[in-house]
């Protein structure tokens, strides 16, 4: 896929929605140039409102984090170590330094916390396996916000357009239905964002990690938490270094795993309260 230029899956028309094929994003920071084309394309195509501008002082990143009005976010990670087998400085004694860019996006979890939490049925799973918010159904209860283990979905504040509802990446479901590739992948000039069939992408991602490791990127790894209760994500990442540096939880858990103990505690409290009240009126009347 990489190197195929405009022949790649990123530019090809497809019928994944009609064929019910699981698709995904593979985002690879080792070839990202930090151009933010994905961020701009996402905002423009999806008509995501302007949510203000502040200088963060954090490298070249003034976006900060994903949210209701930011569905793609290019991170600028600065680390005091070498990037692969790069030559560090012109003279000895210079500190190693690397600058890594990663375009963050909704992970479209296999077990999605937001989808499980949504009380209105507004959040659904599509034919291609992505997680979609139906904006006309969402009543803005805010429960998905605290149920996402990645902090992706958020409620849009007033006075922005469509405020009060929860928003996140739609995986360009509208485009995919028409056989088009998501806007961010379409515009990516280096194919750091690759869109395609989930199985193909997983295989490609493993090859890519192997290739980087062989070429001196000792800390290259795949971020796809298949071992946790999230059971894998449909938008996975290649990382250089630890997930923490990218604001990604190393072991994300879907909050529904906490339901059992919490409900047992609730039922026990309910029964104890009934017994205490009945006892109070039986013995003190």
């Amino acid at each position, binding site marked *: 896929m990489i190197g195929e230029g405009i022949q790649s899956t990123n530019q090809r028309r497809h019928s994944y929605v009609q064929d019910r094929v699981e698709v995904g994003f593979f985002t690879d920071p080792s070839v990202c140039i930090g151009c933010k084309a994905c961020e701009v394309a996402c905002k423009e195509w999806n008509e995501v409102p302007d949510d203000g501008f502040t*200088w*963060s*002082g*954090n*490298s070249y990143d003034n976006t900060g*984090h994903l*949210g209701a009005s930011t569905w793609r976010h290019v*991170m*600028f990670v600065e*680390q005091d170590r070498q990037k692969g087998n790069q030559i560090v400085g012109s003279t000895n004694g210079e500190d190693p330094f690397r600058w890594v860019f990663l375009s963050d996006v909704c992970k479209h979890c296999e077990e999605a916390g937001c989808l*499980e*939490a*949504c*009380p*209105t*049925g507004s959040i659904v799973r599509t034919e291609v396996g992505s997680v979609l918010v139906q904006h006309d*159904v*969402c*009543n803005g*209860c*805010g*429960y998905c*916000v*605290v*149920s996402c283990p*990645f*902090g992706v979905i*958020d*409620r*849009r504040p007033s006075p922005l357009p469509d405020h*009060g*509802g*929860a928003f996140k990446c739609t995986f360009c479901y509208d485009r995919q239905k028409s056989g088009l590739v998501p806007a961010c992948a379409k515009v990516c000039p280096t194919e750091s964002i690759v869109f395609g069939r989930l199985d193909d992408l997983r295989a490609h991602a493993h090859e890519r990690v192997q290739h980087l490791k062989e070429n001196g990127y000792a800390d290259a790894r795949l971020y796809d938490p298949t071992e946790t209760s999230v059971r894998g994500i449909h938008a996975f990442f290649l990382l250089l270094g630890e997930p*923490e*540096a*990218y*604001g990604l*939880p*190393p*072991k994300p*858990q879907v*909050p529904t795993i*906490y339901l059992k*103990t*919490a*409900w047992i*505690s*609730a039922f026990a*409290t*309910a*029964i104890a*309260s009934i017994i*205490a*009240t009945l*006892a*109070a*009126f039986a*013995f*003190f*009347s």
Partner: protein
Amino acid sequence: MSTEQRLDQLRDEAYGKGVVAGRGVDVAGGPIPRKPGYYGEPVVRPPVWTWEVPLYFFFGGIAGMSAVIALASGFHHVDLARTAMWVAVIAGAVISPILLIMDLGRPHLFLNMLRVFKHRSAMSMGAWILSAFGAFAVPGLIALELHARQIFPGTPDQLLRIAAGIFTFGAAIFGTLLATYTGVLIGATAIPAWFLHRTLLPIHFGTAGLGSAAAILELVGHRIAALNFLGYYAAAVETALLVWLNVNKHGAADRAIHQHGTGWIIRIGEILNGPLALVLRFFGFIPWAAISFLAGSLVSRVGWIAVGKVSGSDPESVFAAERY
């Protein structure tokens, strides 16, 4: 304020710490990030809920447990049962839905809450529990009032009495869930300080609801031994929970409870409805014990939401919580 001293001060800071932060120039990334995670950005999202939610937890708890008291007192204290059902209906079928709808981002779509039934969503379960509670409590109160005022004497009155019993029973069952599910609601989330205490939260919210219901009924004039016993019971359980909360620490993962001002809100709340309510009741200051308990259960609920905001904004808490 720009003086030569200020410039010297900045130079000292730059020399000593290697970085100077100021308004608009929070150079977390210069040259290497010094904040945890990605420039200290939150990993999970803090709750967007505002003041309506802790207030709803408070009134929902009172309403639910009032229905339980109404059921238990119906046999011997009809007057108390009537008052308790009034409290249940006003707090649970009027105030609670209003607060919940106010908190929505799109209040006009509140009916979408009943669009689906999802047992794996505590929010969905809560919407159904609150609806079922209202559906039992309102007719229960009407039947009880008609019976107590002898509006339809004879056979209809007997039927009303039976109906009041059945509806009160239903309201009591859903009432216990209404008072406790809120603990599940915030316990089954991605917020570390909440999910680490998912066993404590339903016990705390439910028992605080029971004690608050008893306290309100005492304050409106029902000074009976049974309510006094419930006051002791609830305050004793809350005292035990205060101890548990301070023993069951998880380091950085739940430091929003132990190292932040927000934790003090919870602790002040727990002291008011735990040990202080217990002591006041022991020395016979019953109205003061009731007031202390009510204030404590409101304050501690405000505290739990505030803790969620701090904990959800703290990336280190999320990383640390993965060990538990």
